[in-house]
């Protein structure tokens, strides 16, 4: 394994810890709400700039880990501080650092109490998120994965809505209970794979089917809670609804992706046979998420709840694509995550803009907003169209790729499915209509129509700051919708490698190893 950095400079470590160092400095030395806001913005912009070289000098021709760092951390258990990114994880780091900047700008005015704590929570959250996406050691991964709970718990609990305490405790316990199983799985793999926590070693080690089966289940519970997949999704609508705007943005933009990223980083490459075995199960849950959750979304009266359910439905596409074992579908799933990161973030920001004015999230409290806030209405309609996956938006590229990948049946996935994959694709395609239903109906009720409420009449259009943080999102959604090649290029080599790993059975190697072990022992004696 090549442990040298491509660049000599530890960019990943710097991206991870810059926010925390900045948070410490702000905590100790910066006084006054406005100063704190500017300092936090400076730190987050700086972090974004630091992460840019990851994208700019990324080698798209290889599936190997890049920007690797390796330091022993806990020698007693061979736990290492091992970092590295490939085409699967790198985009998420950029997404995280970008969305954090947007979150901080968006909270400029709507957070007026305990500004400093809020900003510090976001910076520490950023550290843990970048850490999750760059960790190549299972314990380090778990470390960041769990540490993320603390700032998120506080963000929802302190600055959230009326029912925030219930929502945040539910969020915390759901996620914690899910991820403890992951820890057991990781510890078991440590002993099985020969006292190592390296993800790359786990990917190479041939686990036999029984091991894969149980470890897969443990991982699945942890990741499915995070994605979230039906039926363990119930924490999400609560958490989203009660979280402050920026909290929802990070939650939808990044946190949900951690679960799907877990599938791609752990389940598929490490446990290919179990992953194939469970294809029907995952496909079933994904279709339920797409169809049933879309119907649920339609019936929501609360704007944020609606978008939260829409997120679950979109993540259903992602999990569907991830378990199709075709290059196109998997790239579509990855691209879908990135795209959804922008679109869902933007939609939550839109709700935030309205909430700042009327302090309600009820759909019925609005109506005719386009008449008083024309610029804002244009932005909402644009992102609503992106949510529907209209051609020209990034989400269209993602969904079409997943659907093509599903139609273009891979033998591996089909072998485990009782029905033709075509039917799966047909159901998924039809249900794209559902997302149009709930999104457009919401737009109709909120944005269009006559202004028949005095409160709506008094709404002012967005100011420059508000419009400012939509600009990068608008540009990205349209740019990636029209020309997705740059992001797809980054993913390509890594996804090819991942598909190879996922379709290659480990069972033969495991059997060979099981045979070799007694023989080696006999030779030894």
């Amino acid at each position: 394994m090549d442990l040298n950095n491509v660049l000599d400079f530890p960019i990943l470590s710097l991206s991870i810890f810059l926010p925390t160092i900045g948070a410490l400095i702000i905590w100790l030395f910066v006084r006054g709400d406005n100063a704190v806001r500017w300092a936090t913005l400076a730190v987050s912009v700086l972090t974004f700039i630091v992460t840019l070289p990851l994208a700019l000098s990324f080698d798209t021709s290889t599936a190997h880990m890049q920007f690797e760092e390796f330091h022993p951390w806990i020698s007693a258990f061979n736990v290492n501080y091992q970092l590295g990114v490939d085409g699967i994880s790198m985009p998420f780091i950029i997404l995280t650092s970008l969305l954090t900047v947007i979150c901080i700008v968006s909270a400029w005015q709507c957070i007026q109490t305990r500004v400093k704590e809020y900003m510090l929570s976001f910076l520490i959250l950023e550290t843990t998120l970048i850490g999750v996406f760059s960790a190549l050691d299972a314990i380090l991964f778990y470390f960041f994965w769990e540490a993320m709970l603390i700032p998120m718990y506080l963000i929802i609990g302190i600055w959230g809505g009326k029912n925030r305490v219930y929502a945040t405790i539910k969020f915390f316990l759901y996620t914690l209970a899910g991820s403890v199983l992951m820890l057991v799985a990781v510890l078991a793999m440590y002993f099985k794979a020969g006292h190592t926590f390296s993800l790359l070693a786990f990917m190479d080690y041939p686990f036999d089917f029984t091991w894969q089966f149980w470890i897969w289940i443990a991982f699945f519970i942890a990741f499915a809670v995070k994605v979230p997949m039906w039926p363990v999704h119930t924490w999400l609508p609560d958490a989203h609804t009660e979280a402050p705007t920026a909290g929802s943005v990070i939650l939808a933009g990044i946190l949900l992706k951690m679960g799907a990223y877990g599938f791609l980083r752990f389940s598929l490459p490490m446990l290919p046979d179990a992953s194939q075995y469970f294809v029907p199960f995952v496909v079933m849950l994904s279709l339920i998420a797409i169809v049933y959750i879309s119907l649920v979304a339609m019936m929501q009266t609360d704007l944020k709840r609606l978008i939260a359910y829409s997120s679950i439905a979109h993540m259903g596409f992602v999990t569907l694509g991830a378990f199709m074992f075709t290059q196109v579908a998997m790239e579509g799933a990855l691209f879908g995550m990135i795209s959804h990161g922008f679109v869902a973030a933007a939609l939550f920001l839109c709700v935030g803009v309205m909430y700042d004015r009327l302090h309600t999230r009820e759909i019925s409290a609005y109506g005719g907003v386009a008449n008083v806030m024309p610029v804002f209405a244009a932005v909402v309609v644009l992102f609503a169209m992106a949510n529907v996956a209209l051609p020209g938006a990034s989400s269209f590229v993602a969904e079409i790729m997943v659907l093509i990948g599903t139609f273009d049946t891979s033998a591996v996935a089909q072998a485990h499915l009782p029905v033709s994959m075509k039917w799966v694709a047909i159901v998924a395609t039809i249900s794209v209509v559902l997302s149009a239903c709930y999104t457009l109906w919401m737009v109709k009720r909120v944005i269009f129509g006559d202004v028949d409420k005095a409160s709506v009449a008094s709404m002012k259009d967005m100011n420059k700051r508000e419009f400012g943080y939509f600009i990068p999102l608008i540009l990205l959604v349209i740019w990636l919708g029209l020309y997705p090649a740059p992001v797809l290029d980054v993913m390509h080599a890594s996804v090819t490698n991942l598909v190879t790993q996922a379709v290659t059975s480990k069972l033969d190697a495991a059997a060979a190893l099981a045979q070799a072990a007694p023989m080696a022992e006999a030779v030894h004696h």
Partner: protein
Amino acid sequence: MANVTFPFPFPEHLSSLMPEMFVAVIAMALLLLDLFIPREKKCITAYIAIATASVAALLCVSVNPAEPLVGFYGFFVLDQFAVFAKVLICLATALAMVLSVQYMKDLENVGEYYVLMLFAMLGMMLMSSANNFIVMYLGLELMALCIYVLVGYQRDILRSNEAALKYFILGALSSCMLLYGVTFLYGVTGSFDFVTIGKGLADAGSSSHTAVMLGLVFIIAGLAFKVSMAPFHMWTPDAYEGAPTPVTAFMSVAPKVAGFVIFIRILDQAMPALQHEYTMILSAIAVLTMAVGNLAAIAQRNIKRMLAYSTVGHVGFVMLGLIAANDDGYAGILVYMSIYLFMTMGAFAIIIIMQREGIQGELLDDFSGLSKARPGYALAMGLMLFSLAGIPFLGGFWAKYAVFIAAVEAGHVYLVLYALLFSAVGAFYYIRLVKYIYFDDARVQFNFSESRLMQLTVVLMAIAVVALGVYPDPLMDLCKSAVAAMI
């Protein structure tokens, strides 16, 4: 694991006993000296006692042997394992006394309090070095008698008396059980010495099985009482609630360290032949302990009772190290205890600062809005609570990790799974307290009883918890080598 046994003439033996002798002499001298210190200046006694405990810790380090020493006809053993435990015990005692200064000043200011703590510490130090059931029992009783008195220290408060009485009666009963168990082993093997008993049991085979099993069960039950394993935990919540809070802090750390250390020695040296049996018994107890501790804590409204059940829960987790019965497990116990010391002392320091007029500030509600009144304390308490819940970047995560990985190594995957699920259940009551601190508004005016010393303690504990969370490697190495050098 070489044994170096010295011949009778004492000098070398005495030097290995130096920390204990030092504590004994100073404690007795302090008892006399205290008579001449006027009541309003009793903090002099406190500071001398704190200095004694700290110096004792340093002395322990200074007598740290490269090879295990067995002296006094095999009664006393000094190895790195014992030294590590003694340092932890001295540290816990010193911290508990630091927490007491202001608290006792606000109440009745009495000097014997600190002397009793020193004697309890002495008892626990003896326990850590015990190589023989007699020495173990002497240490245990010295500790227990002092703590009975400490628990009932607030004579004019009913619940303090009630707690002390309950603790004393149940404690006496458990000591009887322990002794009863020892007599069975003595009957079978004819010795009180751990190693001789171990050999004797290995030779005895099944002929004396019933007697051996009775001995095992009674000894485990007796010790289980001391470290609050369910179902022998009944005294814990009452004693914790009734005791003066610094004593609660003391009780929840130091005796647990000593208890687990002696548990390890007995199981590892006297009962290796019974590993299958004691693993089964301890697994059953652990399953119960984790459930009782973590579930009952949820129902508590008083923070001291909650932490009492939380201790029970943590004891359940620590037991996984005993059940693993390997070096990693024992090292994990030391790691757990070290980190637990910092978390618990930090949490209790803040509880003591919060206390007003004796017993106010004990309800969870009383913490409402602390983050607005005093963000510093709120942050520290938040860190302690998240750490107790085992959330990473804080020490508590590695404490759990260290024992869990050892248990997985020993093949107890289901037990670890169970433990992890209960640690998620346990997280609920910790984060509920964070909720009071951060999410709720203050209900009453805060009135802190604080001093520079207390603030310093809180800061140091918080730093320790974060530092150990980010870089636990040195501690883990230290514990590992301490266990490797165990006799």
